[in-house]
């Protein structure tokens, strides 16, 4: 395998993990509340900023800072539901989606006021030098961290949805919210959990990006928006779809960057989105129900 191809694949794994992690949160939120969340980028940014503050200003160890960030994001996600979106249950889907745009703007404004608009570099706590070599594959510990976080995150969430009563209830709410509430399922509880998970996943992805590249308050939310094509490619209501969509889109973007130039990589992402929307609106793994929206 050529060096170039190996680089593309490693790049795909990194970016794909990020998309997958954001995407999982998106899918879980969509499935249990039918909210298409455009505020994932702001959650990513919040996660990165909180992590950065704990790491740099408070001198915490990175894993403690990470754990605390994830807990904080889960709490923020739950609050967002309790404060705003709880009031929108029963509203038109479009209204709720537009409200997530508003939420995105509000959260970004809060972040800018609290942390300022500048780019910050975090200390290199995970090295970029290869620790794992196989042929032309060079995997640094930061790569392993990203991939590991995505795999562990997805594993835990899949277990939660499949094996716990809360997960079953969340899936039931996703199927038939009104019937579920009649069956005594507390929809506000499942929705709160879904928002917490969505924010937590996005926050984790934000930490991932800021450790690898930089704590960039404009690039991180933009990346959150780019996760949308990945999610539609995989299918909005499918967890394996979020995974596949994330990695496929990352592959397409990395290959484009390599062969055509980095400028085109975002265009390719949205080109993929348009093609998916027209050819197969339910995505690769999504159920046909979704396509009827």
């Amino acid at each position, binding site marked *: 395998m050529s060096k170039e191809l190996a680089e593309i694949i490693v790049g795909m794994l990194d970016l794909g993990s990020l998309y997958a992690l954001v995407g999982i949160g998106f899918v879980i939120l969509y499935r249990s509340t039918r909210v298409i969340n455009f505020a994932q980028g702001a959650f990513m940014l919040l996660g990165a900023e909180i992590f950065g503050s704990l790491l740099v200003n408070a001198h915490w160890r990175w894993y403690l800072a990470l754990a605390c960030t994830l807990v904080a994001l889960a709490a923020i996600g739950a609050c967002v539901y309790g404060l705003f979106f709880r009031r929108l249950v029963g509203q038109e*889907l479009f209204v709720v989606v*537009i409200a997530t745009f508003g939420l995105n*703007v509000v959260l970004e404004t809060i972040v800018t006021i609290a942390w300022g608009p500048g780019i910050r570099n975090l200390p290199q706590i995970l090295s970029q030098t290869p620790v794992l070599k196989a042929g032309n594959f060079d995997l640094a510990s930061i790569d392993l961290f990203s991939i590991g976080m995505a795999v562990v995150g997805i594993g835990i969430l899949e277990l939660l949805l499949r094996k716990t009563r809360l997960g079953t209830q969340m899936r039931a709410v996703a199927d038939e919210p009104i019937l579920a509430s009649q069956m005594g399922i507390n929809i506000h509880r499942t929705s709160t959990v879904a928002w917490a998970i969505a924010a937590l996943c996005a926050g984790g992805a934000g930490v991932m990006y800021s450790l690898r590249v930089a704590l960039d308050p404009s690039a991180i939310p933009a990346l959150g928006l780019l996760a949308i094509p990945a999610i539609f490619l995989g299918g909005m209501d499918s967890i394996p779809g979020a995974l596949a969509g994330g990695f496929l889109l990352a592959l397409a973007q990395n290959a484009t960057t390599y062969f055509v130039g980095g400028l085109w990589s975002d265009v390719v992402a949205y080109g993929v989105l348009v093609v998916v929307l027209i050819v197969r609106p339910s995505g690769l793994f999504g159920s046909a129900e979704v396509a009827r*929206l």
Partner: protein
Amino acid sequence: MPAAPANLADGSRAREWLVVKTVAPWIIAAVAAVVLVEASNAFLLLMIGTIVIYSISAIGLTWLMGRAGLVSIGNAAIMGVGAYITAIASAKPVISDFPIPILLSAVGGMVAGLIVGLPGLRIRGIYLAISTLALQYFVTFAGSEYEQLSGQPSGLVVTPLSIAGHTFLYGRGLVLILLAFLGLTVLLVRSVLRQGPGRMFGAIKESEIAAAAIGVNTTRWKLAAFVGSSAVIAVAGSLFAYYTEVVDSATFSLDFAITFIVIIIIGGMGSIPGAIVGAVIVVGLPHLLTMVTSSLPQAGIGQWLQSNVFYINEGLFGFLLLLVIIYQPDGLAAATQAWPGLRHLPPRLKRHRPTAGSRREPTVAPVTKCAAPAITAMPRPDQPESGDHRVQLAQIEGLAVTYRGGARAVDGLNMTIDRGAIVALLGRNGAGKTSTLRAISGFLPAERVRLEGSIRVAGHQLLGMTPVTASKWAMLVPETDKIFPSLTVEEHLRIRPGRPDADVQEQPFFAPLRNRWHQRAGLLSGGERQLLALAMAWQQRPRLLLVDEFSLGLAPVAIQRVAEVIRALRDDYGMSCLVVEQNVAAALQVADWVYLMEAGRITAEGPPDTVAAEALVGQSLLLQPEGGEP
């Protein structure tokens, strides 16, 4: 004969008054705007110019979203198309003359609108919105590439507007021209929306299928909405280019697009004056905030506000959006409720009409396993648990159900259900049967339907309860959407803590479910779904089970099986049941007491064998257009 001419005169005067009433506010507004522009200082002028341009763009968007019901967040992209075309054309010698750049922008906008509209023929709702998001990326990408290529990386410089040798730089004259364009836009869009096309858009927005059925070419009109509104929006972009004198791709961001959605949400979707009011608020508020904060003391919160007012203003439209959506969402709701797929938490997101078996009436209704002994007794059937005198479980008195449109589905319904009885409520389509069931189970208050009267079950007043609380006493098994398609049968029965699914497994009458234990419920047959729904309901142990059209779409054998289960739940657990049916034969397989319903009222009641004949006659009347009472 003096009355007629007087009436005629009255009529024409009324018509004149109507014309004055609709036209006068616009004329007053126009005059006021011109006076305001003449009296403004430079700062106010800057604001008014922006408001006017945003208003034009918002009017285009409100046409598309509010009137034609097509969702778009591509507004900034279309404006970008107009702005770029104007910037490029204004620099070229031949085509830079007024109004060529503006016309070219309009044409460019129409082409862009057509391109966005094409996917809109296949996808709709939020999918369409997201595909317009892609347009946003493409336009800004192409724009920034062009800026790089033409050597103007910080934006294309626009040659100022020049009409008949007079150049309009930034100032009063330019703002007056913008106002003229706004006036033209209002006149044009109003006349389009008030005449034939407006009705077409309205029809498509209300129901695309129905519109197509009455011969509206929905494809053509949807594309027309995209093309027409995009022309308006692109002209706004063109004026924006002349106004700001520089066209930069960074301007036409997603946030910019959302700003216009905020404007039309604030003003009320579909309203032209609303679009202008929204623009005034969205453009004016940040300036107002800046003014207010600058007058605050230089300490504490005042200082904090002053140092952050720039960022707050940047995000102000987000705050506005959340506030409006949460506290004043009706403007939006009215505009979007037409899309059936767009309801958040919709009551009928999915329909799972069982396909197996068509609807047929069994020729005979043999009640084979009839355990209730008292069916033939003329007074009410005896209760298994209470011996010789019957105990009432539920009393419904004077129940009236009025929907939001004013339609009365149920009109003074009285009914009693004895403990341990299976009561059937029969009637033709539209008699108010399902409304009655939904009223009892608490679904209607949740849908803001007005209820009057009294519904008492086991001594509890259910009127006005939510489905969750009502389900302790009365549990509804709906006609559709009664199971969770992606959950397995086992998961259905384990949703709630403390309800062992083993219970269900042991019940002989739920035996068919055992073979399907680990299958997704979406794969079950219609009869199995009904059994599963009954099993779930039974797990809750309600005092009264409400079953809506259990026979719908089931084969006679399956109907019989479901009927047996309903009887068994009564015989073994004393669960009373109210069954709503159009299929009289199916209902007679289970019921010990029958109510007939017609136009929201009970018209007859009695034991099945006496009422059955009447009911069957009633059912045959379904075939006649104007069925009188027999």
